[in-house]
């Protein structure tokens, strides 16, 4: 009896230990690059079990503190109610950790069925490995897939020039201001002709009035300031150039941009704890009326709507101060993310239809309009106007209307290792532990 019991226990342990090692059909096929013949065969084969309710795993960047999180949750509920399918949502806030996790999931065969992810260099690895399905392949079976989008605005992969993702909304990066703080400091809300010198003068006044001029965590998110200070030392035409070293023309431009950030730090215009605070902590400064300026993206509108609903009128969108060839109305922006259907889901007859429907639902005119009240979209028919806009949304729309040019973020041209190294060194640049040129060379060497 004891032997039998022991044998059962040993077998149970073995089975438990190796349960995770059992290859599934989808996992196996997901690791193989798509062959053209296979794609053609699959293209003609309609999924048999498509109508059965299934469970989809979805990963997006609509994490807990994303401005569109509430819209996303409502959209998930709407999709589930409409289709009877269930969505296992594993979304998180977009940062380098999140990107690394997404890539790891693909490499280990545990990728989601649908992924909302970047469509620039960040997605090269999954495109190269054939782990996501192109629009051409999907449209061979579902001809109406993403037909509500302007073809010319769908972003092609740098790997093979094919389109893999369907966008929801584009983004812009600009400057949020706390008008109450500006008023208290006797500073006018910046306009379309805002210059760097005016900005420095305003910062001095704001500081003197007892406020923090700029809300930024150099320790965690120096990204936006890097982007605009580099832009300020160049032009729209050359903004997307990546230097070969710190001593070439672009390298010197980058170094000048980083030196501008250092000048702000040295002048005491950044939060006292900018080297130790998280991004959330510094954003809270402007929300609480302790700081005046914040450079952030279109996704931050939702943060103010959610967290500052009772004093939303205190906030407005303005332009990042300009110098050199750049005008204040030249913005950073574009369509950088979209919904991918993974090969794993596409090859699974039970999930293919559900995944396609999910992307179609999330990128429908109605949903895109909800997500993109103030942002750029690729919709052929444009955004359905919202019933009512709040003051911040109106301010954002006015800011976008005044834009003279929009260019992508140059940091997206760097590998995650280069980007990580460069931004980790911003705090060392401002504290003079290393020079801007050394930081640039260090990043480029990665």
């Amino acid at each position, binding site marked *: 009896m004891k032997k039998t019991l022991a044998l059962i226990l040993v077998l149970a342990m073995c089975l438990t230990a190796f349960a995770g090692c059992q290859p599934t059909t989808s996992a196996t096929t997901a690791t193989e690059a798509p062959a053209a013949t296979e794609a053609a065969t699959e293209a003609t084969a309609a999924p048999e079990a498509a109508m059965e309710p299934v469970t989809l795993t979805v990963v997006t960047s609509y994490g807990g503190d994303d401005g569109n999180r509430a819209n996303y949750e409502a959209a998930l509920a709407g999709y589930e109610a409409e289709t009877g399918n269930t969505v296992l949502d594993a979304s998180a806030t977009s940062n380098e950790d999140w990107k690394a996790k997404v890539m790891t999931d693909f*490499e280990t065969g545990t990728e989601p069925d649908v992924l909302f992810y970047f469509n620039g260099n960040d997605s090269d*690895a999954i495109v190269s490995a054939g782990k996501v399905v192109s629009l051409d392949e999907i449209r061979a079976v579902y001809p109406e897939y993403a037909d509500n989008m302007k073809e010319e605005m769908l972003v092609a992969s740098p790997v093979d020039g094919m389109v893999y993702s369907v966008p929801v909304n584009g983004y812009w990066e600009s400057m949020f201001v706390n008008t109450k703080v500006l008023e208290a400091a006797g500073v006018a809300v910046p306009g379309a002709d805002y210059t760097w010198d005016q900005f420095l003068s305003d910062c001095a006044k704001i500081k003197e009035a007892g406020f923090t001029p700029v809300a930024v965590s150099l320790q965690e998110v120096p990204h936006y300031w890097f982007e605009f200070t580099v832009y300020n030392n160049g032009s729209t035409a050359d903004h997307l150039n990546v230097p070969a070293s710190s001593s070439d023309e672009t390298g010197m431009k980058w170094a000048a941009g980083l030196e501008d950030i250092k000048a702000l730090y040295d002048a005491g215009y950044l939060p006292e*704890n900018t080297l130790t605070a998280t991004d959330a902590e510094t954003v809270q400064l402007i929300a609480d009326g302790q700081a005046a300026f914040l450079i952030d993206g279109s996704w931050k509108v939702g943060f103010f709507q959610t967290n500052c609903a009772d004093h939303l009128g205190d906030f407005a969108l303005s332009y990042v101060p300009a110098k050199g060839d750049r005008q204040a109305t030249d913005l950073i922006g574009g369509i950088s993310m979209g919904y991918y259907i993974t090969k794993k889901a596409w090859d699974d007859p039970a999930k293919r239809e559900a995944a396609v429907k999910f992307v179609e639902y999330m990128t429908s005119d109605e949903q895109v309009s909800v997500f993109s009240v103030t942002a750029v979209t690729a919709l052929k028919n444009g955004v359905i106007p919202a019933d009512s806009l709040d003051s911040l949304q109106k301010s954002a729309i006015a800011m976008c209307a005044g834009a003279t040019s929009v260019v992508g973020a140059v940091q997206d041209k760097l590998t995650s*290792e280069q980007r990580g*190294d460069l931004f980790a060194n911003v705090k060392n640049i401002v504290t003079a532990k290393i020079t801007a040129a050394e930081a640039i060379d260090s990043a480029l060497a990665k």
Partner: protein
Amino acid sequence: MNSMIYKKKSPLLFFLLPAFLFLVVYLYYPFIQNIINSFQAISGLGTRATGLNQPWYANYVELWNDPSMRTAVKNTLLLVLCTLVFQVGTALVLALIVDRIKVGAKFFRTLYFFPIVISATALGLLFNLIFLYNGGMLNQLLQNLGWASANIDWKGEKHYFFTMLLPILWQYVGFYFVILVTGLNNISTDVYEAAELDGATGWKRVRYITLPLLRNVICTCLVLAVTGALKVFDLPWVMMGAGIPLDQSWLTGTYMYNQTFTRGNVDYGSAIAVVIVVLGVLLAQIANRVFKEKEY
């Protein structure tokens, strides 16, 4: 039945095999692969190696010259030392006090043990709020009491080690406390009674009776503290993230995680992992020898 088991050794092997296989698949294979990875060029997390580094030991040369790695090793060793002194020390003092009280001993046992059952991530978030710069509990308290005129940056260069250390020490005091209390309970009351008749009371009782008889238990706690401190990761990661401030708070574990998962420098992260293992084995061996248990 029992005698059969001892005569035939094959059933023993049969029972040992699953655990052995489990360890081979989930520990030894990844460990060996990690050593191999540390010599290879791997450009991103999960991506295949593109070949050997040039030279193949390049990561180890970089480790030697990396100031953040030196900081990480220094901080880790300092943490081990602080753990030994403050964590086990505090636990010992608390155990001795609780052992002497007649009412409420069980209450204190539960109270001190409680932090261990809370997830380190939750504790990290909790202490983040306590040490928050703007509106944090500690800064508010100090200012309301008039002990500070402005916010103190608890994660700044002056206070970061204390800020990181305090929650780690606090969380595991209860663990050693419970072990030590159990050890104290095992000391026969007859010994104390005999000591009392000989005039040993108060501190003498502790010094000459309790501590010598508790030596082996204390040694076990010290060895556990050394090996435990080497593995500390989650709480400092949640609180100090990327080496806050200015790369000064790195521990070997957090630095390895940052290089591997945040920076995508996988091969370098693998090299750091190898150093962590070597450091762990070395310190564990030293701890075992220094705090060797005695036979009485």
